[in-house]
């Protein structure tokens, strides 16, 4: 009889019940969407951040020598040092090697770039674009013996017009920054000359053809990129590099430990985490998560208000029915059970629909905000339904109190 009363009561007031369910759907779908995103976004956004560049910088260890007069400090001088290119593979032999997404060496030199119409002092950068290294002594026998890396791996966000240098032995092509292209009035396919001379070496020149023009809105826009051996030969620094940029997946991994291990693996270098980037990454994720919980709380509160309004209206409209039930012997706990069961059903249906709607919402938010696909998490389903039932039951406290205080003698009074 209870289920008959319950089902008929719900069907009789289906418009209001649907409105209450919709209120729950809003809260449950928001909670589902944000919980799904929260589950996924940390790893996926972290991976996404890694696409925006390296987060570890390896430089040669330098000793600074203070100079000046007794009692007068006028600064320091540093000894120019290099990292050996032959040590690069060792980065893939540290304990956290699987978190190393890629790395690229850099050798910088200011050179003179000459075209038929102009010449300009430009930074020439020698690097790897896409080079396969042999891992001479792997950390584990299960590790792969080779590792392909370069700026293509650690800087996928570069906007490129033209093509990449694909051959590590290519000595005739260059990729130039967009500012360089403008300054030297160069387009893809055109050839220019770079010349280098210092106090100890004779002048050397090389002709290069523009293979691609890159835009990063950073320092790269002002540089000419060539294969590392081209720069090493031109500047007479065989096997030498200035820095290594390492891209590491650093969600919850100890970046400082990571850096220390690289320092141990390659003698004579300093490895520093680009803390600013890491901190911004983690701070942003924390802010996003806080915002998600705030939005979820607000949505659930709005749902609660919607359900409470519907339930109170229902109690007011059904005062005579409640009074009648009491007059034929219904006790307070039976009236309470009827209303809480209605609330629970609203919560279950709203929670289920909200879960499905939330998955869709998560998918849309994932694509439009984070540019990642959010996977459905089944473990969110009981949470969504639990939250929906909790919200409806809590919202029913005031209406139920009102229902059990209905006085049959007053509401059933003849007119």
């Amino acid at each position, binding site marked *: *009889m209870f289920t008959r009363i319950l089902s008929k009561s719900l069907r009789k007031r289906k418009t209001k019940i649907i409105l209450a369910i919709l209120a729950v759907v809003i809260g449950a779908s928001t909670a589902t969407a944000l919980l799904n995103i929260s589950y996924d976004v940390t790893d996926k956004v972290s991976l996404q951040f890694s696409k925006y560049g390296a987060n570890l910088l390896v430089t040669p260890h330098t000793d600074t020598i203070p100079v000046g007069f007794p009692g007068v400090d006028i600064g320091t001088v540093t000894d120019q040092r290099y990292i050996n290119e032959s040590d690069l593979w060792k980065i893939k032999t540290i304990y956290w090697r699987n978190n190393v997404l890629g790395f690229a060496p850099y050798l910088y030199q200011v050179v003179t770039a000459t075209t038929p119409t102009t010449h300009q002092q430009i930074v020439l950068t020698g690097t790897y674009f896409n080079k396969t290294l042999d891992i001479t002594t792997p950390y584990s026998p299960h590790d792969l013996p080779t590792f392909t890396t370069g700026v293509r791996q650690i800087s996928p966000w570069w906007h490129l017009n033209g093509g990449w240098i694909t051959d590590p032995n290519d000595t005739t092509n260059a990729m130039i920054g967009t500012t360089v292209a403008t300054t030297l009035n160069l387009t893809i396919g055109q050839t220019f000359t770079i010349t280098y001379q210092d106090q100890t070496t004779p002048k050397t020149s090389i002709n290069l053809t523009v293979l691609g023009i890159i835009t990063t809105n950073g320092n790269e826009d002002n540089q000419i990129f060539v294969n590392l051996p081209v720069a090493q030969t031109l500047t007479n620094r065989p096997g030498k590099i200035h820095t290594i940029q390492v891209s590491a997946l650093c969600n919850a991994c100890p970046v400082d430990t990571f850096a220390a291990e690289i320092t141990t693996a390659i003698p004579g270098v300093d490895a520093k985490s680009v803390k600013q980037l890491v901190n911004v990454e983690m701070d942003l994720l924390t802010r996003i998560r806080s915002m998600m919980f705030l939005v979820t709380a607000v949505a659930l509160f709005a749902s609660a208000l919607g359900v409470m309004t519907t339930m109170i209206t229902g109690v007011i409209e059904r005062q005579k029915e409640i009074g009648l039930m009491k007059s034929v012997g219904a006790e307070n706990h039976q009236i309470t059970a009827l209303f809480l069961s209605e609330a629970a059903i609203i919560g279950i249906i709203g929670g289920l629909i909200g879960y499905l709607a939330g998955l869709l919402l998560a998918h849309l938010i994932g694509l439009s905000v984070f540019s990642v696909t959010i996977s459905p998490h089944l473990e969110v389903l009981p949470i969504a339904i639990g939250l929906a039932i909790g919200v409806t039951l809590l919202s029913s406290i005031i209406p139920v109190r009102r229902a059990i205080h209905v006085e049959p003698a007053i509401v059933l009074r003849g007119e």
Partner: protein
Amino acid sequence: MNDSLITLRNLTKQYDATTRAIDNLTLNFHKGEWTSIMGPSGSGKTTLLNILGCLDIPTTGTVTINGTDITTITAQQLTCFRRNQIGLIFQQYHLVPYLTSLENVMLAQYYHKTINEQKAIDVLHRVGLAHRLHHVPAHLSGGEQQRVCIARALINDPKILLADEPTGNLDQKNGDIVLRLIQELREEGHTIILVTHNEDIGRLGDRLVRLIDGRIASDIRIEKKGVSS
């Protein structure tokens, strides 16, 4: 005279400092008797019926029904007492709009003890509604709704039937049907207390009590009985 089933002693119901609905009323109702209560509006008829129906409690005085002083028991015990001892017939029927005739009768069974659908069908048959078992109130005439209300009042075999203007909303024909039914119940031994404004209906009972300002104005036994026409 029959045994006293209900005894009121010095009963007073005061709503506020100036409104006294029942004023020091002492009255007995006898087993198997139909007592009609009449009086002008505000005389305390409905308040008295609510107290007898355990829907309200007096300010002072005692109400003893079938040996139990209902002024000394808890609200929960009062609910339990009501569903076991009393059947209520309302002027406005007060049927649950989304339940059928049969379900409205079974509702009283559900809150009483156990559901016996056949018994509910039998009671509806008894009040002439065997063909209306599965109709919701909106599809029943006023007289039919009142008969469902009577069936609901009878379903748990109460000792006392309280009726508040049971024909107040009915036309003459349906009113007569309902009154005949109440007379049959009285003949079967039910104790009936019926509030009415109608002198003819009031005189159908065994006894007519008139209230004015919450006090007994007259209490007479009716010699002649019959259905008004």
